[in-house]
């Protein structure tokens, strides 16, 4: 039986892995390769790393550090941040990533998704959508350009049409808060897509994981809970398993 995945989603900033709080401040997690080694030994199912220096400051993608992480990572590795061209995708996959996460470039040009999917396959493309709630409505948020007048579900459906393999759906409001995933947001997406949804932002305890799976998430991304609470990946999975959600236990 297919298992629900538990996926650390962390940021790369100044050669360190960090965790953002509501997309605003950052807490240091640690050295990239050392952290990947720890994740490998703790039975998480995949790893997503977003290079925010590359995405925010237009710096080149840090392929050196991606290579170092990939060398330690015997599970799927998704790299995002600052991927704007097919050459960037080649660079990131060549450095050892299995998938790329695309965000700002696809908002501007959804055909970029199709281009990647055609060359590398849909399984390679994770479309990352950051969402903020404003006056009871959800809108796509861009780290660079702020709030956009785009409906997140419509954007996700467009990405799916262009050949996206998965959607990484992040609530900016819940990011790093431990208040739980944005279930209302998730409900809007439930049953709307044929591709898997990875929900991100807000997991602070195992019951949040259960809520998300109840409401249509296929996989769970998180970071804060793994580093700044008492809960381990195994504890979250055990709780899910007790509640009859299939997970990979060690």
């Amino acid at each position: 039986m297919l298992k629900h995945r538990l996926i650390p989603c962390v940021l790369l900033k100044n050669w360190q892995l960090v965790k953002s709080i509501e997309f605003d401040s950052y807490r240091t997690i640690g050295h990239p390769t050392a952290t990947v080694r720890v994740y490998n030994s703790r039975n998480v199912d995949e790893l997503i790393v977003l290079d925010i220096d590359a995405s925010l400051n237009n710096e080149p993608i840090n392929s050196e550090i991606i290579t170092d992480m990939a060398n330690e990572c015997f599970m799927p590795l998704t790299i995002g941040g600052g991927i704007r061209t097919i050459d960037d995708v080649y660079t990131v996959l060549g450095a050892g990533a299995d998938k790329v996460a695309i965000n700002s470039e696809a908002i501007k040009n959804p055909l970029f998704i199709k281009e990647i999917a055609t060359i590398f396959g849909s399984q390679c493309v994770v479309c990352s959508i950051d969402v903020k709630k404003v006056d009871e409505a959800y809108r796509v948020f861009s780290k660079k350009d702020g709030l956009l007048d785009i409906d997140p579900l419509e954007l996700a459906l467009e990405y799916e049409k262009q050949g996206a393999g998965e959607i990484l759906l992040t609530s900016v409001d819940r990011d790093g808060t431990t208040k739980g995933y944005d279930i209302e947001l998730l409900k809007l997406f439930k049953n709307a897509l044929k591709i898997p949804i990875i929900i991100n932002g807000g997991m602070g305890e195992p019951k949040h994981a259960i809520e998300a799976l109840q409401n249509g998430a296929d996989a769970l991304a998180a970071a804060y809970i793994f580093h700044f609470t008492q809960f381990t990946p195994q504890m979250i999975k055990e709780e899910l398993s007790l509640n009859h959600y299939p997970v990979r236990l060690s």
Partner: protein
Amino acid sequence: MSASIVIVDYGMGNLRSVQKAFEKVGFRAIITREHELIKSATHIVLPGVGAFRDAMKNLNSLGLVEVLNEEVLKNKKLFLGICLGMQLIAQKSYEFGECEGLGWIEAEVIKFDEGDLKIPHVGWNSVDYASPSILFENVPNGSDFYFVHSYYFNALNSYVIGHSSYGRNFICALQKDNIFATQFHPEKSQKHGLQIIKNFASLTKESLC
């Protein structure tokens, strides 16, 4: 004779991750498309992600189809196909229209199309053994492995060593004499996956007889 492992580079997917999995379990593997290197190898690995048609096109244009047929079918070199590399040994695939494969096993590659299934089938899924194989030595039955694919390998059951289930039961591992193949990615499946890589690398042609 010690193992000489080649990973066939035909422009499809993440070869480095397969290479470092071999390194992790103590074996050196060369990524190459050179015919002579493939001919001098004891173990041939055909990984790959992407589309079937492109893969066959690349294998053909690089002259690798003849080399693989010669070394695997005639010279009985140890072979491991991973993911797309497993699908390629089928007779044909229906991905983007019908396309002929290497045809080493009587099989077709067809798309998952069961009802509300999310496609691709992506994530960790358990593998149930269909018959004993040296490939699964020291790996418990029912272990989870990482999959990512939209098409599956449909064949008679004669060479099947592992099944998995996604909307339907499908073949996820097989062995026909010197030919091994997995739909899942052992190189991405942590300790059990690395064990499979190690098992394959440790094989000798003689040990199979």
